[in-house]
C-alpha cells in the first residue's frame, strides 16, 4: 500500500453524560472507542454502521470538529491530533466535509455565489475577476448552471443544494473529502445523480473519499474498501468484494441479510438479530456485539476480540476468527 493520505490509530472520542436535572456527569458515551484505519490516496473508504455506531463521530474527529480523547490522526504524513487551531486552518482547506443536509450548512441569506466565494476569500487565494471565474468553474464542475450564483439556497431542490455543498467542499482543491451521509436525504433518482457526480469528480480530480453511510447499497456502489462499525469500534474491514461477499463477522452478515432487496422473492435468509443496539454509554462487556450475536460463545461475554488479519487487507475482530 502506498503512503496513506490519512492514518487513524487508536482513536477514541468520549463524551460526558450529564444528568438533566443536576448537570452532573453520570457517565461517559464512548462514541468512538479505539478505531484504526488508513486511507490511501485516491481510495474511497466506506464506513458503515447503524445509529450509535460512532461513524459520524469518527468523521468529525478526523476533521477535529470534535477533539478526540485519545489516539492519533495523521494527515499527509503529519500528526494533526493536537495541532493548535491556527495551524489547523490551512489544513482545513485540504480536508473537507459534505453533510447530509446541506440546507442547514448554507447561510439562507447569502447567494450561492457568495457562499462559494467565501472559502477563497477566507484563505485569501483569489479575488476580483479570478474569484468570479473560480466560482463559475465550481458551478460547472458540479453540474449547476452559471446563473445559480445569483440565487439563494431556498430556491434550489435538495439535490441541487447538495451539489452546492459539494462545490463548496471542492473550492480549495482538497485531497480528502469526508461525506457524512451525503445522499441519505435525497430521493432515489436524485441520489443516483449525486453518487455519479461524486464518482466522476473523484476520477477527474484524484480525490480521496471517506464515505460515511448506513446505506450498504450506496457504499457498495462507490467504495473500494469498507469498514463496519458497531458501538464505537470497527468490527470488520476489508476490500469491498471481500466484505460484501465473504463477510466474516456475524454482525456484518446480519447487516447484509437485513438489507431489503428491490427484487421480489429474492429475500435472503435473515440472520435473526434480537434486540436493539445497546447504548454507547453502557456497552456490554467483552465483545460489544455478543448479546445480539447468534453465534456468541462464553468467551465473547468476557474478552473483547482483537482485530485479526485475514489477508488481502481483510480484518475482523471476532473470536470465531483467529486469536
Amino acid at each position, binding site marked *: 500500500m502506498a503512503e496513506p493520505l490519512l492514518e487513524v490509530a487508536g482513536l477514541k472520542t468520549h463524551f460526558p453524560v450529564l444528568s438533566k436535572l443536576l448537570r452532573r456527569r453520570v457517565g461517559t458515551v464512548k462514541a468512538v472507542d479505539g478505531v484504526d484505519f488508513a486511507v490511501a490516496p485516491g481510495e474511497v473508504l466506506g464506513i458503515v454502521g447503524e445509529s450509535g455506531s460512532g461513524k459520524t463521530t469518527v468523521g468529525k474527529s478526523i476533521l477535529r470538529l470534535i477533539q478526540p480523547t485519545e489516539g492519533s490522526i495523521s494527515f499527509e504524513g503529519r500528526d494533526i491530533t493536537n495541532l493548535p487551531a491556527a495551524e489547523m486552518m490551512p489544513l482545513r482547506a485540504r480536508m473537507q466535509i459534505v453533510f447530509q443536509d446541506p440546507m442547514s450548512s448554507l447561510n439562507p441569506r447569502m447567494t450561492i455565489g457568495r457562499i462559494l466565494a467565501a472559502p477563497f476569500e477566507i484563505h485569501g487565494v483569489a479575488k476580483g475577476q479570478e474569484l468570479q471565474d473560480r466560482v463559475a468553474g465550481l458551478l460547472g464542475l458540479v453540474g449547476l448552471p452559471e446563473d445559480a450564483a445569483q440565487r439563494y439556497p431556498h430556491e434550489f431542490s435538495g439535490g441541487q443544494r447538495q451539489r452546492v455543498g459539494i462545490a463548496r467542499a471542492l473550492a480549495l482543491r482538497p485531497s480528502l473529502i469526508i461525506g457524512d451521509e451525503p445522499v441519505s436525504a435525497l430521493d*432515489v433518482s436524485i441520489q443516483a445523480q449525486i453518487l*455519479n457526480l461524486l464518482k466522476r469528480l473523484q476520477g477527474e480530480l484524484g480525490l480521496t473519499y471517506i464515505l460515511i453511510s448506513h446505506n450498504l447499497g450506496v457504499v457498495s456502489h462507490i467504495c473500494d474498501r469498507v469498514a463496519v462499525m458497531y458501538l464505537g469500534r470497527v468490527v470488520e474491514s476489508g476490500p469491498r468484494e471481500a466484505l460484501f461477499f465473504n463477510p466474516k463477522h456475524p454482525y456484518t452478515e446480519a447487516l447484509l441479510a437485513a438489507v*431489503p432487496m428491490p427484487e*421480489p*422473492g429474492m429475500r435472503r435468509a435473515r440472520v435473526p*438479530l434480537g434486540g436493539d443496539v445497546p447504548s454507547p454509554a453502557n456497552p456490554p462487556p467483552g465483545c460489544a456485539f455478543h448479546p445480539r450475536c447468534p453465534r456468541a460463545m462464553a468467551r465473547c461475554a468476557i474478552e473483547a476480540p482483537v482485530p485479526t488479519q485475514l489477508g488481502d487487507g481483510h480484518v475482523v475482530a471476532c473470536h470465531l476468527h483467529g486469536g
Partner: protein
Amino acid sequence: MAEAVLRAEKLGVAFRIPGGRTKAVDGVTFELRHGETLGLVGESGSGKTLTSLALMRLLESPPAELSADSIVFEGRDLLGLSEAEMADLRGARLSMIFQEPMTSLNPLMTVGRQIDEPLVRHLGLSAAEARARSEALLARVGIPRPSEAAQRYPHQLSGGMRQRVMIAIALACRPSVLVADEPTTALDVTIQAQILDLLRELQDELGTAILLITHDLAVIAETAHRVAVMYAGRIVETGPVAALFATPLHPYTEGLLRSIPRITRIREAELPEIPGMVPAPGQLPAGCAFAPRCAFADAACHAERPTLMPAEGGREVACWKPRHG
C-alpha cells in the same frame, strides 16, 4: 380475488395559495383488499403521505382541502361521516402508524397508558382490563418484560421499541385497515427488518389490510402484495409486486428501479439516473408530468396527460408509451 375493504375514488388534496389552488394529490384511485398489503411508493412530493392522511381524514383543513368521489371503507363512505363517527372508526377499524417513532408518542405519558387509551375509548374496557390487554399487546409486538415496559416513558425506549409500541397502539382494537406511513424509514436497517417481519406476522394473524407508504422500493419488494407508484400527485402505475418489479411498464418506475444502488459483485461504472427533478405542485406541465424527465417522451406525451389504463395481468399504467408493452 378478495373483496376490497377500502376503496378510494378520485381522491384529491388541494392547497389554497395566493391566487388559486394547487393540487398536491389528483384523482388517486385505488383499492385495498382484505389481508393484503398495498405498497404506495413515490419520491418526496409525490403526494403519498397526503393521500394517507386524506384517507384517515387527518389533513389539517385549512389549509388542505380534501376532495374525492368516494372513500368507501367497510361499505361506508368516509366522506359522509361526521367527525364524531370518524373518530369512532379511527384507532378501532382504521389505524395508522407514522414515520417518526421518536416524536409520535406523547413524551409525558407512559407507553402503557398510550396503549390503554384506544382500548378504553373503543372497546369500553376498564382501566385494569385495558392494562392487561396492553401488556399482552406489548408482549405480542416483541417487547420483553411487558408489565415493566408499560410503566416506561417513550424516551426510555429505543426507536425500534417505540415503533413496536406504535404498532401495538394501532393494532390494539384489531383494525381491518392499517395505514403505515414510512414505518421503518427512521430506523436502522437491522431494526427495519425486525419491524417489517413483525408487521407481516401480525397481518397473517389478524387479517389486517395494510397500506404501506414508503419511498423505498426494496421495502415494497419484500413486503407488499401489490404496489401503486405515485409521481407528482398521481398514480402512474399499479400492479402485483412481482410483475411490476420484473417488467415495469412506466418509464418512471423503470428509471426508479434502475437507479437504486445495489450490492453487486461487479459494480456498474455509473448508476442509471433519472435526469432533472420532480416538478413542484402547481408547476406541473400540461401533458404527462414525467415527460420532461422521460427519455421516451414525444410530442403526444407533452401535449396530453395519460390516464391509468388497464394492462395485462391486472396491471394499470398511465403512459402513452409504456415499456415492455
